[in-house]
């Protein structure tokens, strides 16, 4: 069973992930993953170094987005697991300020499906995939 401390640490990992991503701290973002972590979005990136390199690409491309001030928002975090491993899912929306109109809009919607592991005493993402359309019910972690 996950302890209260585990659950709070995992909640904080989700928050830190978003903040690192949005402020452009790609080293901090890559450190949200285990050393052998995997990130699957439009493309798959394995290993923290590759993830960090991909993060730098994302940052560079960000300037071409029609919005700025991206904020990753998470909701409905479901976590099931035990002392050292867990499965999780949560919702994602990215809110941004449109460059042309200054309007705030939801610019991306997604669903994260995650595997988490404790590495050197810290919870990290071991595998993280993002779906951009409603996933099947088996995306939801089974009750432990």
């Amino acid at each position, binding site marked *: 069973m996950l302890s209260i401390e585990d659950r709070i640490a995992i909640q904080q990992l989700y928050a830190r992930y978003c903040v690192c991503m949005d402020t452009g701290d790609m080293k901090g973002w890559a450190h949200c993953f285990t050393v052998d972590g995997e990130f699957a979005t439009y493309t798959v990136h394995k290993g923290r170094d590759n993830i960090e390199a991909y993060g730098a690409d994302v940052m560079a491309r960000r300037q071409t987005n029609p919005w700025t001030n991206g904020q990753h928002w998470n*909701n409905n975090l479901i976590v099931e697991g035990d002392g050292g491993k867990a499965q999780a899912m949560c919702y994602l929306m990215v809110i941004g300020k449109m460059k042309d109109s200054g309007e705030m809009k939801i610019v991306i*919607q997604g669903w994260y499906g995650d595997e988490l592991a404790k590495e050197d005493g810290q919870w990290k993402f071991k595998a993280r995939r993002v779906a951009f359309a*409603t996933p099947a019910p088996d995306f939801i972690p089974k009750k432990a």
Partner: protein
Amino acid sequence: MLSIEDRLAIQQLHARYCACLDTGDVKGWARCFTRDGEFGVRTMHKGRDRLEAHGAVVMSRRQNNSWTNVQHWNGNIIVEGDASGASAMSYLAMVGRVKDSDALTIVAQGWYNDTLEKEDGEWKFSTRRISFDTPRPDSIPQQS
């Protein structure tokens, strides 16, 4: 008094409720309620079998909506109670992708008012009412 474990379990129930509803897991959604649980907007549906039947109707009607990829977002979950039962309220923002424009937008807003009970060791909704307009201040659970 509610323990931290109770509070975390109730938070996760709120998340699971949304994930089941949005991925079309009607059985999982009905299991967020106690066996004699009740849900409704104006008409209340009582009992897990009736809830499951009602949920199936709601999900099949979804195809007629002008949006797809529905996401129920929750916020401001207030829970008061003790091990024998609790009252809760929360906000709902429903996000969807508009079929004709592909725009992501908030398609509905709501306020949940709930009572919760532990059944076979698991927190469930015993009643869940939703309103689509600002409720009165007395719908906020009293501090216990």
